[in-house]
């Protein structure tokens, strides 16, 4: 909510012309977040400092967000979704609110117009920008440097303790940041304008198409070629969320949890494999609108940044363990030098192969997540009935989007059902399938509940074939970024060794009329085996006729 811009250009008070703000007066502007004030703590020929103080109105902020969207929790993306009614740092931190105030207060300067001193617009000036409370989420001081140093700034970023009374809590994400360098004032301001929300990793307002236009417009001069352009685009175009998330968020509020306290359980395996794939939450809607942005954007590389190309930002993958992604995908080549398929893709291929071998035509993917396997099943007309099941309504929304359900032909539409259900409740809608796929799901279930899961699947649903995949914990040592003992996903309740998985499958076939084969998927390591374990359970033949 506070920043200063200083220059030692001679005469320094020319800063007032560039900013269109007289150094001896206080200038007040009303913004949606509250009144913004520009004043000059110092204004001499040697040095001139302009200060922007945004008096954030926290009450108005909360009321505004719930009023404008009609539904709480949908005010914005990312962090703000959960925090809409919580007290948070926005009244004090240099966030997107401050960026908006900058755009309102310094619009002419940011556009590079100055009638009184036109030559100064194109003159690089010795500048110093201080942001005393800049949130640097998911990267700290290093992230500030990664963002600003490529633009020519010298960065000084000092961390602040969370609470002096509790030193073991560590540092706050906020840093006292001073940027020093010689630059065009318009560039300096627009860079701060774009990068403040990126560092905050949250925007206080809805991300729409105009946001994309804005990014393209503001960043046109300096964003192309920035080594972190993908991260910038991705964070700037913050994620969006739907109804189910809003309801879940309400429950997290009841639990005194932060939004991060509810990890995405429905994106199985995204850590080891899907990190290289577009995040549906990020690109499902925006990347289509980005297409229109393309016409005004001279740099096609930016488009890719919206979520295609390989991600280098572990922290933006919800629930993923930071740092592990690179390990999982480090040098993904086979022995013969051909690039190796992502593990998730290998899993899908293995599952499709097993389903075809089993001759399955009616298939349920239980815990389908965002529906990548479902899309594969839909594409193959040999599958006559496809049931996409997840406990998360949001996951099914993503699946429906991926499948473009609204645009499906009647013939395909009839083959697909999207079902919210749970593995811990029996469900007649899942009975009598030829095959049920349970891929990267069991490890999201608390171990004491596994007998119920077994009863629901094998006792009640009773498919002809049940395919189960789950991580092989032994293989985790092969992931460089994964600290010892840490699981591959924050929501994993356990990961099994091969012996543990085999023992569990043994229990299943001991209790239910099934036979099982156990194998694996992925590069086979002589010591620790394959990264994914696979079990194929088949209903004993006499039961097939009696399936009811």
């Amino acid at each position, binding site marked *: 909510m*506070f920043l*200063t811009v200083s220059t030692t250009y001679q005469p320094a008070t020319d800063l007032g012309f560039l900013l269109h703000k007289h150094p001896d*007066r*206080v200038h007040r502007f009303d913004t949606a977040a509250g009144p913004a*004030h520009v*004043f*000059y*703590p110092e204004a001499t020929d040697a040095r001139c400092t302009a*200060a922007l*103080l945004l008096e954030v*109105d*926290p*009450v108005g902020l909360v009321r505004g967000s719930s009023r404008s969207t009609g539904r*709480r929790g949908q005010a914005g993306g990312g962090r703000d979704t959960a925090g809409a009614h*919580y*007290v*948070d*740092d926005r009244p*004090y931190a240099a966030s997107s609110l401050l960026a908006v105030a900058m755009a309102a207060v310094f619009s002419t300067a940011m556009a590079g117009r100055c009638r009184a001193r036109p030559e100064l617009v194109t003159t690089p000036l010795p500048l110093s920008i201080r942001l*005393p409370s800049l949130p640097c989420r998911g990267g700290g001081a290093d992230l500030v440097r990664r963002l600003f140093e490529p633009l020519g700034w010298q960065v000084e970023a000092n961390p*602040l303790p*969370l*609470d002096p009374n509790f030193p073991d809590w560590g540092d*706050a994400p*906020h840093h*006292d940041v001073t940027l020093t360098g010689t630059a065009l004032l318009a560039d300096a301001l627009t860079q701060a304008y774009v990068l403040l929300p990126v560092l905050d990793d949250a925007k206080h307002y809805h991300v729409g198409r105009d946001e994309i236009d804005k990014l393209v417009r503001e960043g046109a001069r300096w964003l192309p070629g920035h080594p972190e352009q993908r991260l910038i685009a991705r964070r700037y175009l913050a994620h969006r969320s739907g109804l*189910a998330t*809003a309801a*879940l968020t*309400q*429950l997290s509020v009841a*639990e*005194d949890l*932060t939004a991060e306290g509810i990890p995405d359980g429905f994106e199985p395996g995204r850590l080891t494999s899907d990190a290289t794939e577009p995040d549906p939450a990020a690109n499902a809607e925006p990347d289509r609108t980005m297409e229109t942005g393309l016409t005004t954007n001279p740099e096609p590389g930016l488009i890719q940044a919206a979520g295609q190309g390989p991600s280098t930002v572990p922290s933006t993958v919800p629930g993923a363990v930071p740092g592990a992604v690179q390990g999982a995908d480090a040098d993904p080549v*086979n022995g013969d030098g051909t690039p190796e398929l992502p593990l998730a893709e290998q899993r899908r291929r293995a599952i499709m192969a097993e389903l075809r071998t089993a001759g399955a035509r009616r298939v349920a993917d239980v815990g389908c997540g965002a529906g990548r396997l479902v899309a594969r099943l839909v594409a193959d007309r040999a599958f006559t009935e496809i049931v996409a099941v997840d406990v998360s309504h949001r996951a099914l929304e993503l699946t429906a989007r991926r499948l473009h359900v609204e645009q499906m032909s009647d013939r395909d539409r009839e083959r697909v059902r999207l079902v*919210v*259900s749970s593995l*811990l*409740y029996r*469900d007649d*809608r899942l009975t009598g399938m030829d095959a049920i796929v349970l891929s990267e799901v069991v490890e999201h279930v608390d171990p*004491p509940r596994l*007998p119920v899961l077994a009863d629901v699947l094998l*006792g*009640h649903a009773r498919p002809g074939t049940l395919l189960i995949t789950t991580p092989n914990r032994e293989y985790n040592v092969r992931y460089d970024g994964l600290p010892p003992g840490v699981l591959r996903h924050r929501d994993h309740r356990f990961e099994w060794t091969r*012996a543990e998985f085999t*023992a569990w499958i043994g229990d299943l076939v*001991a209790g239910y009329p099934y036979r099982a*084969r156990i*194998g694996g*998927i992925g*590069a*086979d390591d002589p010591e620790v085996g*394959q990264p994914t374990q696979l079990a*194929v359970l088949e209903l*004993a*033949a*006499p*039961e097939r006729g*009696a399936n009811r």
Partner: protein
Amino acid sequence: MSETSQLPSEPSEPSEPSEPSEPSEPSELSELSEPSELSGLSEPPKEPPVAPLTIPNPSLVVLVGVTGSGKSTFARRHFLPTQVLSSDFCRGLVADDENDQSATADAFDVLNFIAARRLTAGRLTVVDATNVQRTSRARLVELARAHDVLPVAIVLDVPESVCVARNADRPDRAFGAHVVRRQHGELRRSLRGLAREGFRRVHVLRSEAEIAAATIQYTPLLNDRRELTGPFDVIGDVHGCRDELEALLIRLGYQLRRDDEGRAVGGAHPEGRRAIFLGDLVDRGPDTPGVLRLAMGMVAAGEAFAVPGNHENKLVRALRGRQVRIGHGLAESLAQLGRETPEFRTEVEQFCDGLVSHLVLDGGRLVVAHAGLKEAYQGRASGRVRSFALYGDTTGESDEYGLPVRYPWARDYRGKAMVLYGHTPVPEPRWENNTLCLDTGCVFGGRLTALRYPERELVSVPAAREYFEPRRPLTEQHTEQPAEGPATRPEEEPSVDDGAVDPPAAGASDPGPASLIIDTGASVDRTTGPTARPDTLHVNDVLGRRFIETRHGGRVRIEEPNALAALEVMSRFAVDPRWLVYLPPTMSPPPTSTLPGLLEHPAEAFEAYRADGVEDLLCEQKHMGSRAVVVVCRDAATARGRFGAPDGVTGAVFTRTGRPFLAPDLTEALLARLRAAMATSGLWDELAAGWAVFDGEIMPWSAKAHALIRRQYAATGAAARAALPVAVDALARAVGRGVDVADLLERTRGRAANADAFTAAYQPYCWPVDGLDGLRFAPFMLLAAGGVAPAAPPIDQAAAAVAGGAGHAGDGQTARTYLHQDNLWHLAVADRLAAADPDLLATTARIRVNPADPDSVAAGTRWWEELTAAGGEGMVVKPFAGLARGKRGLALAGVKVRGREYLRIIYGADYTEAVHLERLRERGLGRKRSLAFREYALGLEALERTAAGEPLWRVHECVFAVLALESEPVDPRL
């Protein structure tokens, strides 16, 4: 008046695979007692006034008559308009023209659909169509059977000339006389065959006079004995074990009557209790005639009721000389009966023949049937209802012992009525979804068991010896296990034993065939199969738009999106639903205060209760921690017996959304301390409890909310400390330059001070915790407690178990709530626990307030001011009495009054500034209060259902609903 009642040709018995299937015979037993003579068709009735037309209710009444015969008029006169489905009307619905014959097919689709819905709900339904053709009637008979109600025909046989004349008077009916003539002919040809077509009653009205004079009389089905309210003693399969039956009846308090030869021929209970025999009185045992003599005598004297078993069914046919396969102990019965008189054998045959397949008793709250009965069949009559009642829901398969495999209908049972049954011997009676099997295999050397209803007490006597060798071991829970097929193992696939783990060998990019094969084949351990998880819930128990009736707060509605959110949270995060007997309600603040600088103040809370007529209040200190519900068991056996807990688990500690509060080891450590405190304080014994449920608060707040506090609150404070001093400094320098920012400087200095106060507000609720060290639990309510689960007694000690009495019902589910106790009683319990373990368990400060007494109100207000000034969160104002009632029914459980400084955490550092406070006062409390009330009602209901021993799904739907309501969009700052 003419009437006919014909017996249906329903299949009598599903053939059991162990014996060659017999030719299907008509059932010998009727659900209706009317004589089955056929009359009135050939000769007109002699003398009016006529007897009323008897119609069983429910039934499907089919009116038969040519057009113009007066069916609609007849229907209007005798039935409710909504009971009558007219084909003409349905034609109008689909075609805007009641006489558009081209719409007939569509019209009957509509008619059948509506009729099906009504019959499913058990509502009498009348079909008003000509129905003169056999095919159209056949469809209706089929419809009735599909819903297990009886089809009844009422024929209006009016002279052709009358019909023609009537049609001529109706301009909309352009039928020629030939149509009437044709229909009349069809009707004539149909009359004789109606009973054979499947109509269980056929009433033929042969003239306009008869039609005019007709009256309707509804007769209940014979299985409808809802007027009998008990108490009953329901007795499982006796199978000729007369000694044990006499012993059991005596133990139950019956005084047996004996004939001259000393044979028991009856038995009355001095308190008017009546016995119910669940069938299979006969076969296998040593004295089938003696058992029958006693049971028949009691039934004849009104001292007992009986339903038939499959063995009685077969015995009747054997006694009638039919060809039956002599097995299953029938030989013994026939030999024993052969030594009796022919008269006695006739009596036996008539008795067994007259038994009604099942009985619905006590206002519909109790259903008895030999093999049980699913809800859709209760109070219905059809061949398949009877078949189910006698044989259960067989799958048509047989198990490895050659016995029929039964589908586990009880596992899916969701009906309101308690179902008591026998048929399949079990080692221990075990409640499953409000059903109980009482066959404890007496004839196989087990026990003879009765259930006292409504007390739900089990009483049993051991068998003197094994009279008959069971074909499969009695100790095995086989009844609900779907059959295993013979071990099949394709020969081309190599197999290995369990545990012999070959390293997976599939390739990297080609997964190839999985390498390890597990196939335990026939050596299946059945105990881990479905029978081991009878409590599995069904999505239909929780999903969709739902209405839940609560005892204390009326009906609560749950919307589907909220249920979906709850499903995800429940599935991904909640503890085992068997522990989840309660979730606490949210709590509303009082109406907003208008005092300067305050949003909440005790005055409004006191006044709100006073206005509702609740004038005795208890204010309790509000602990600033996290809400926790604790279920603690006295020992591992109770945890296992009552909650199905695995080894090493003796309870649960969960949050207000059902998540485990602590890691498993810490949970057990806390439970051990609480268990010990219960023992030290003597509460276990005093409550005669084996388990108890507490509502309370676990402190510090940081123990659970550490991530939130650090990310949200501490970070906010840190951001403020970083930004505001720098801004103040810059403003001061600008003021020094003469810039007019003095006001802004002052405001910003004020915000800096508020930010410090904000940090100071959360700090007292944070302290380090290491294991249990530093953790405190403040129980403030003992919600419920339950009895000790008895160990399953060995057979020969069964008699000892009988003496256990009410506290030891066989399932260990006897429990009670303490909701009626006043809140001081609850705090006294907490005080005793805290005294026993003061390091872990905390008391709750309190003060009693009379809201009508100004001095008392002032004292309560002072108390609150002192609490909050010392850094406390605030207080909860509760009615002093448990389940207190106000003017509009149940009063809210409590209202929270939070302190001024605490609310900075909620509303932000600067909320106390007048400009903010004015706007914050506009907060709407209606939704929050409504939500608090609904969640309170649901929580109470969950506890009441738990205490009443209701099935898991009934408890779970309530706690699930609390969670669903919690996902409703309500300002979380309230």
